[in-house]
């Protein structure tokens, strides 16, 4: 068995963050930290080196999640997954994030997405097409070979 994936939660709604923590554990991952604003998010990502960062676009210091995500993806080496009600405002390249889950999400959609990402990270390839509710960025579709899979099916 490989070690469970570590997850950093970047979310300024504390109740959402707490519930996300439950979902992270239920998906077999470990929550290693929680940040409310972008500065904390980047700092924690660099210190804790999580495998995955779940990032909201609107944080307690404003709409800073996109920049924080880019910094975390490029400088801290984490896989970033956006969780936002503002899917339309994300840049085309998703700021280096692997994908996005639109709010309001269901607990099942989050668990499925985390399980899917865990497999992608462990195998370096997707186990199948992404589950409903999870949209992958173009570059990660290529990286995890989701495109060939969609064609093969």
């Amino acid at each position, binding site marked *: 068995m490989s070690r469970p994936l570590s997850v950093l939660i970047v979310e300024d709604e504390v109740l*959402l963050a*707490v519930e996300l923590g439950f979902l992270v554990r239920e998906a077999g991952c470990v929550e290693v930290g929680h940040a409310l604003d972008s500065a904390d998010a980047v700092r924690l990502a660099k210190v804790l080196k999580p495998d995955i960062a779940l990032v909201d676009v*609107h944080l307690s210091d404003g709409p800073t999640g996109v920049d924080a995500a880019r910094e975390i993806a490029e400088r801290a080496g984490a896989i970033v997954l956006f969780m936002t009600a*503002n899917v339309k405002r994300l840049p085309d390249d998703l700021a280096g994030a692997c994908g996005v889950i*639109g709010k309001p999400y269901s607990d099942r*959609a989050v668990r499925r997405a985390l399980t899917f990402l865990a497999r992608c990270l462990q195998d370096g390839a997707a186990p199948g097409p992404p589950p*409903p509710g999870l949209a992958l960025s173009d570059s990660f579709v290529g990286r995890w070979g989701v495109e060939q899979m969609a064609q093969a099916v």
Partner: protein
Amino acid sequence: MTIVDAQAPDLPIVFVNDAFLNMTGYRRDEVLGRNCRFLQGPDTEGPVVKALAQAINKGEATNQDLLNYRKDGTPFWNALQISPVRNAAGLIVYYIGSQVDVTARKAAEAALEAAAAEQARTAQQALADRTALLHEVDHRVKNNLQLITSLLVLQTRRTLDDATRAALQSMLSRVSAIATVHRRLFQSHDLERFDVATFIRDLMGDVSSGREEVDIRLDLERVDIAAAQAAPLALAVNELVDNAFKHGLTPGRPGRLRIQVRRLNGHYVIEVCDDGPGLPENGVFEPGFGLTITNLLAQQLRATLQFEAGEPGLRAILKLPAHG
């Protein structure tokens, strides 16, 4: 009025009337013998002057509005009309020019144009503001729905009593159905219409992942309903599906669930069929809360709700009038 000598070099003015002198502010001796171009100035439009010259070269009459300048340097709009005068041999001997000061008309036109442009700008700004507001409200509604969902899940986690847990879970599934509607409404390009088939696919994606033993078949025609009907219809469908899972498809048994959406004789027909125990022997259900609200929602949608014996199981049929 001016008359110029068409045979002399550079078309000198040979006659002007008093109206011309009053309009331009020059004395008669200052204009006689000169070409009319002394009226032009820095903002006189080149293409208009060129059109004048071309007409004269061809010996044609012409009408042009051009910006001229008085002796004191103030500009005015000159509606200029030039006509050639021919002698008996057909040779152009004079050009007669008539000038009318149309500055006031031009100013009115410009003001109208400016007003129209300003109106367009205001309308565009209003549209941009409205769109921004819509996005902001959409964003807040989504976040609030997320908050409500998370609160319900959190409390469900801490609730040990089975009945309370079941009630919380039912409420969660209802709120989630509304959340799914809202997510879909703003994703589509048409904010007025709601795609029922896509909603049902989303809904089943969420419901089914907990119940892998159930074989789910979706047979969905694309059906659009008015956005205002989206939430009540979504809630009604959610109740029917929830009912099928609770009473028709006992956990662990590899049951079958079929959902069909189709158009039929001016109606949209939504069927939810399970292969469970079906109708009670007396044909009447205990009126639980789920059935109560489904009936109320059906009333609101002007729909009929029927339960029939499936073969086997239960077939719930929701039939609502199609509009457009």
